[in-house]
C-alpha cells in the first residue's frame, strides 16, 4: 500500500504531475523526467517532487532562472531541470 508523501506514491503520479498549464513547463519537466529522473539520488528526487508542487507561474520563474526557490535542494533541482532542457528533445 502506498501513501501520499512516500516517494513510491509520488513516482506513480510523476508523469501526470508534469502535465501543466504552459507549454514551456511541459517541455522542460517531461524532458527532465525522461532523461534524468531515474538516475537521481533519493534526496534530489524528493526535491523534484517538492518543486512540482509549486504554482505554474512560480515554477516558470524558477525554471527560466528568473527567481530562485528558497529551499536549497529545490533550487538545485530547478537548475538541473533548466540545464536538461535543450534543442534535441
Amino acid at each position, binding site marked *: 500500500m502506498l501513501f501520499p508523501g512516500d516517494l513510491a506514491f509520488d513516482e506513480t503520479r510523476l508523469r501526470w504531475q508534469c*502535465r501543466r498549464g504552459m507549454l*514551456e513547463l*511541459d517541455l522542460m519537466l517531461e524532458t527532465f523526467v525522461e532523461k534524468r529522473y531515474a538516475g537521481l539520488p533519493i534526496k534530489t528526487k524528493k526535491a523534484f517532487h517538492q518543486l512540482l508542487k509549486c504554482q505554474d507561474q512560480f515554477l516558470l520563474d524558477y525554471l527560466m532562472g528568473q527567481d530562485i526557490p528558497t529551499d536549497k535542494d529545490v533550487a538545485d533541482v530547478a537548475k538541473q531541470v533548466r540545464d536538461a532542457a535543450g534543442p534535441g528533445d
Partner: protein
Amino acid sequence: MSIENLERRKFDTLVIGAGGGGLRAALQLAEADTHVAVVSKVFPTRSHTVAAQGGMNAALANVLPDNWHWHMYDTIKGSDYLGDQDAIEYMCRSAAHLVYELEHQGVPFSRMDSGKIYQRPFGGQSQNFGGEQAARTCAAADRTGHAILHTLYQQNIRAKTHFFDEYFAIDLIKDKDGFILGALVLEIETGEPLLIEAKTTLLATGGAGQLFRTNTNAHINTGDGLAMSLRAGIPLQDMEFFQFHPTGIAGKGMLITEGARGEGGYLVNKDGERFMERYAPHAKDLASRDVVSRAIAIEVREGRGCGPNADHVMLKLDHLGRDVLYKRLPGICDLCKTFMHIDPAEESIPVFPTAHYTMGGIPTNRYGQVVVPVDQGEESIPGLYAVGECACVSVHGANRLGGNSLLDIVVFGRAAGNDIKKYLKENRHHRQIDEESVEQALVHLKRWDESDGNGSETVHGLRAELQKAMEDYCSVFRTEEILQQGLEKVLDLEKRMKNVRITDHSKVFNTARIEAMELENLVDLAVATVKSALERKESRGAHSRMDYPDRDDVSWLKHSLYYKEGHRMDYKPVTLKPISVDTFPPKPRVY
C-alpha cells in the same frame, strides 16, 4: 468494470474543465447553492488559462477615451464579420462590470498612479469606430490568466464547489429524448470509471492546439470536450478557423513576440535572403501575422527552408547588438538560451508559424446553451452548455483579437451559470439515466482496457503523424489540392486508430490510456478541421486559401457545421443583428 458495479454520483451541475470559463460558471452556481461538481484532468490551477499573459479587454476608458460600442466594432471587424453581433454586443457591454467583479474577488489588476486600473493598447483596438489606437486591455502585470485562475479557484473553494481533480471525461450521457444527463469520467489515480449524473452539464475543456506539430498550447489542450460533443451527435462550428502566430520556435512552438521584429529583427531563408521583401515590399517583416506566416510556409514548401530537414526559416536578431537585445527582449533571450541553447546576440533563431487559438468549437448561443439546427431555425440541447475556447458562441468569428479570450471565458462562464440556474428551477428532478448510453461510454473505455498489444500502431507514432499532417496540409498555406491531400491523410489516420495498441494495462496513473483517448479526440478534430477548411472556398480571417484569395460575403458569410456521422457539412447564418444597436455591415477589413 460492469455497469452494475459502476460507482455513481449525482449533482445539479457537472462542469467539465477547470479553466477560467468552467470556474466562473461553477462559482455563479455554487454561490446560488447549486450542487456543482467540477471535473478536471489536471489540478485546476494547472489549466491552460494560467498561460494567458496579455490581459482582458474592457472599455473602462481609464487611459484613453473608450466605450463598449467601439470595442464591439473592433471585435466584429477583427472577426472578419463572421462573429455573431448579438453575442459580441453582450460581451462588450458586460466587460467593465466583470473586470470590477474580478477585482473585488481578488484579482490584483495593475494600477496607474491615480489608483485606476491600468490599461494597455493591443492590436486591433481603436477609438471611435476605426480611429486612433485605443488602450483597452486590463492586466495583472504579465500574469493575468494566472491571477484570474487562482482567484476563481479560491472563490470556488470558499463557495464549496466539489472538485474531482485528475479525472478524465470520456463521454456525455444522453437519453432518447436528447437530454444530456452527465458524463462518464475516469479517475486517473485508480483507473476506475465514475458516472456523474447531472441535470445540467457544462463543457469548458479548452482548445485543441495539440492538433498541430508546432503550437503554443500546453500538452493538455487536446480538445476533449469538442470530440465528446462530436461523438454525442453534436456538430462543431467554424473549425477551419485556427489562429496562427508567424514566429514560434521551430520544433517547440513557443512564441517569439512580434516585438522582436518591431525592434529590427528580420527573417531569412537558407540562402540568407531577406525574403519578406518579396512578399510585402513596404511593411516587410512587420506585415500582418497572416502574411508573414504564409510567406514562411511558402519558403519552406519551395525548398528554401533552413536546417537539415529544411523545415523552418531563421529570425535574425544578432545585428541589433547584445546590449539592445538583452535590455529590450530579455524574455526571448531566456527562451532561446533555455530551449535552443542559442544566444540570439550571436546566432539566428529557427522559427515556424505556431498554432495558437481554436476559434471554432461547440455551437452555443449567448446564454452558453449548446444549439443545433432544427428545420429552419435552431434549438438548444436540453441540459448541455459550453463556454470558453471549446465553444463557438461566436464572438471571435474568423479571427480573435488579443485580450478577448479572457473576457470571453468570464462573460460566458457567468452567463451560462445564470442560465443553468433558470434551467434548474424548471427541471428540479434528475431524469432517469439512460443505461444504454452509459453502456456505450463503458464500451468506449473498455476498448483501451482490452487492447491486446498486437496492434501495429503506437499512440506516440500516430500522434506525431497526425500533427505533422495537420502542419503540412492544414496550417497557414491552404489550397484545394493541399487540403484534399490532407483530408485523405487524416481519414487514413482515422482508419488506423483501430490498430493503435497500448501495452500498459495497469490501473494506477495509467497515462498511456489517457494519451490514447486524447489521440482519439484529436483524430476526430483533425477530420473536422480539414473537412471544414476544404469546403470553405474563400479567404476570411485566419482561413486563407491561396486559390480563393478574397472574402466572399455573397456565398460564405455563414458558419460551417461539421458532423462526425458521414463527415457531413451544414451551414447556418451569421447573426448580424445585435441586441440593441445597429448592425455593423461587412466592409473590407483594412488596418
